């Protein structure tokens, strides 16, 4: 997207799905060796891709995204911070750092699909992103996620579709103690409050999260 004055003005007016909780996230985050922090990473760009990865159209799209992941859990990394998550054998989600700046990228993907079987759709406001990080992040998640999150089964750099607190999310481990959760926008309030509740037991006396 060209950075016109209009676009800058519109970008300043955007409200992310969990923006009303940012102060709570900040107050509920815990420092220290048992700490865990929560923040929203707003306005990431997302593109839903459905294509057979072995088809010609799949190869053309893969050339733009840095390849399409081949199996459950794998994430492909492309240029300019583009990551592509595996959702199914023929379904992928490409995540870019900024929804406002990905129009050219989406147009490129649409052109790469051409008349091949499949679809490319900008899904940027479909989901928001939470980042749960810290030594206790896995313990917070394990209270309400049945997937095996032990590092031997869920290593850094993998992503799965699963359920956290009864709602479907994309769970993406971006670092040894850092998880990104991508719930649909309408679940953002619920999941944000759910995670804050799970973090409360790690608060230390005197911290803002202590009750």
């Amino acid at each position, binding site marked *: 997207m060209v950075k016109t004055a209009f676009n800058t003005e519109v970008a300043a007016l955007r409200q992310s799905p969990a923006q009303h909780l940012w102060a709570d996230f900040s107050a509920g985050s815990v420092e220290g060796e048992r700490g865990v922090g929560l923040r929203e990473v707003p306005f990431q760009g997302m593109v839903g891709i459905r294509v057979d990865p072995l088809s010609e159209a799949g190869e053309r799209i893969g050339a733009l995204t840095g390849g399409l992941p081949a199996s*459950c859990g794998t994430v492909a990394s492309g240029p300019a911070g583009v990551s592509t998550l595996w*959702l*199914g*054998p023929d*379904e992928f989600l490409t995540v870019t750092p900024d929804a406002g700046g990905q129009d050219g990228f989406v147009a490129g993907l649409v052109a790469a699909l051409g008349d091949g079987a499949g679809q490319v759709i900008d899904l940027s406001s479909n989901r928001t992103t939470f980042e749960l990080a810290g030594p206790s992040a896995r313990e917070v998640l394990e209270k309400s996620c*049945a*997937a*095996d999150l032990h590092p031997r089964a869920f290593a850094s750099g993998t992503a*799965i*579709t*699963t*359920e956290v607190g*009864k709602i*479907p999310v994309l769970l993406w481990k971006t670092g040894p103690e850092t998880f990104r959760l991508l719930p649909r926008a309408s679940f953002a309030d619920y999941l944000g409050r759910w995670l804050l509740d799970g973090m409360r037991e790690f608060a230390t006396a005197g911290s803002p999260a202590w009750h």
Partner: protein
Amino acid sequence: MLLFSCPNCGPRNETEFHYGGQAHVAYPDQPGELSDREWAEYLFYRQNTKGLFAERWVHSTGCRKWFNMIRDTVSYDIQAVYRMGEQPPEGLTAPPAAQAKSQPLAPAEANPTNTSEGV
């Protein structure tokens, strides 16, 4: 909690899945030629098996793909998981179509065209 082994995603909690009923119910070769009774039997009549049962499941909050599973309806023991379009492993269960033929509800109206193998 039951763990289901999705053919695409591996072991996951049962709450991520939804049930799709009996597997391997063949779509009629000539649906237009069926009587109302035969059509209703195709649509609604299912086995009520006690023991090993072939059924369809979909990993609805995961890869969103369907697969077949053989589950013991008494003990909930999962004997096999296999992809759509594949036949159940040998010896685990008789194809439900064969069971249905061996005990027709209305012998005089048994439908000889209902032989194609669905997925």
